[in-house]
C-alpha cells in the first residue's frame, strides 16, 4: 500500500498527523511535513495510514494499492 499526499489540497488541518503520529509529522506551519510525497507504507503502519486518509477533511490523502507509474 502506498500513501500519496496532494500538496495542493493539503490546507493544514492537522488531523492526519494527529491520528497517525508515527507515519506523519507536522511542519512549522501546521501542514503535514510529508505533503507532496508518495511512498510505501510499512505494514505495521497500515492502520495509521487508513486513519489519516479518513481523517483528512480536504481529501488530500490517497491510499494506492499499486505504486503510481
Amino acid at each position: 500500500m502506498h500513501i500519496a499526499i496532494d500538496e495542493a489540497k493539503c490546507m493544514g488541518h492537522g488531523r492526519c498527523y494527529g491520528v497517525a503520529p508515527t507515519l506523519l509529522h507536522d511542519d512549522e506551519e501546521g501542514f503535514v511535513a510529508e505533503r507532496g510525497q508518495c511512498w510505501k507504507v510499512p505494514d505495521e503502519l497500515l492502520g495509521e495510514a487508513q486513519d489519516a486518509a479518513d481523517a483528512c477533511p480536504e481529501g488530500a490523502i490517497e491510499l494506492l494499492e499499486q505504486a503510481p507509474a
Partner: protein
Amino acid sequence: MTETQTEATSAEGAELTHRGCPVVHTDYTQETEIFGHYALLDPDREKARFLFNDTTDRGFFMLQRYDDVREGFQQHVTWTTDVRSALRPGSSNERLLPQDLNGQEHVKLRRILNQFFAPAAVRRMEQMATERCIELIEELKPEGSIDFVAEFAIRYPTDLFLALLGLPVSDGDFFLEWSEDYFNALLAGRPAEATESKKKIMDYFDQAVNDRRENPLDPDLDMVTRLVTARIDDQPIPQEDITTICLTLMLAGLDTTRSALGYIFAHLATHPEDRRAITEDPSLVPNAVEEFLRTFPLVIQAGREVQEPGEFHGLELEKGDVVWLGVAQANRDPRKFPEPDEVKLDRAGANQHLAFGGGPHRCLGMHLARLELKVVMEEWHKRIPEYQIPDGTELRERGGQLTMTSLPLEWDV
C-alpha cells in the same frame, strides 16, 4: 374560510423557486431557546439539496450537505470571501485580515501567521494556558454558583488572546468590555454604535505594536515582532494591517471559544454519564472536543461571493451571487454522521467535521481553540467534577453566530 386561504398561500409559497431552487424564508439571526437554530437548520437541509433564502437584501444560495459544503470551501478560486457572511453580506465594509484576502495575497499572509497557530506553536503555549486556566477555576470554585458564560467562558480565551499578542493578561479586566461592546454591535449589523469601543481597541493595539517595534522579541516566537519585521513582496506590512490582524483575531477567537465552552458545559451538566466518563478518563477529551464541535457548531455558515458564473452540481450560479456554506448543516448531516444529534464521545471520524471550515480560509486558530477546550475540560473536572444547572433555568441562544446568552452553573462548596 380564512384557514383555507392561508393554506393556499403557504402551498404556493412552498412552490416558489428561484433559479430552480425552492425559496425559503427561514431567519437564522433571531435569539431562540437553546438548540432552536439546529431545529431550523436540520429540516431545511432535508427540504432540497439547494435552497434559496430570501431573508437578506441579496438572498443566498444554500449548500447544506456535508459533501457539498466541503466542496464549496474548496471552490476558493471562483468563490471568494468578498462576502464573508451570507447573513450579513454588507459586513465586509469592516475590514478583516487575513479573511478578506484571496488567492496568492491570502497565501502570503497566512504563511506568516500560520506558524504562530500551528500545533508546534500551540504546544509552546500549553503550560501557560494550563496555569491560567487553573487560576481562573480556583478563583471561581469557592463561589459555588456562577454564570459560566460571563464569568469563565469569555474570560479565559480573552486572557490567552492577550498572551498571544504578548500583552499582560491582567489587561483583560478592561479589554473585555470593549471587545464585547464592539463584537455585539458588529454582529447586530450596527458597527457605528460601537465606534468608541473600536477606537479604544485599535489604540490599544497600536500602542502594543509600536512597543514591539521599539522592543522587539524573538520573531520566531513572538507574533507581533514577526509582523513588524516581516516582508511581503519586499514590503513591510503596514501598521493598520497589523492592527487589523489583531482585531480580526479578537473577533474570530473570543466569542467562538466562549460559545463552544458554553455548549460543552451545558451538555456535560445535563449528561452525568458523559461528565463522569471524562472525569474518570481524561484520555477521552481530545475526541470529545471534536465531537462537541461537530454536534454543536456555532459558526453555522460561511459566506462566499461568486466571481465567475458556473454550475455546481446542477445549481447555476451567476457572478455576484451569495453562497451559504452550511457548516452546521454539514456537521449534522446524517449522510455523513449517523445519528447526528447524539453526542458520542468516542465517535469514529468525529474529527472530519467542518466546524473550522475548510480550504485555504480554514480557521487559523483551530489548534489554539482545541487546546483551550481540552485544557478547560481536563482542569475543570479535576477540580469541580460535579455541577448542575439550577432548576427552572431557561437557556437561550443568540442567532447569527450562535452562543448561549448565559449558563448558570452551581456546585457544592
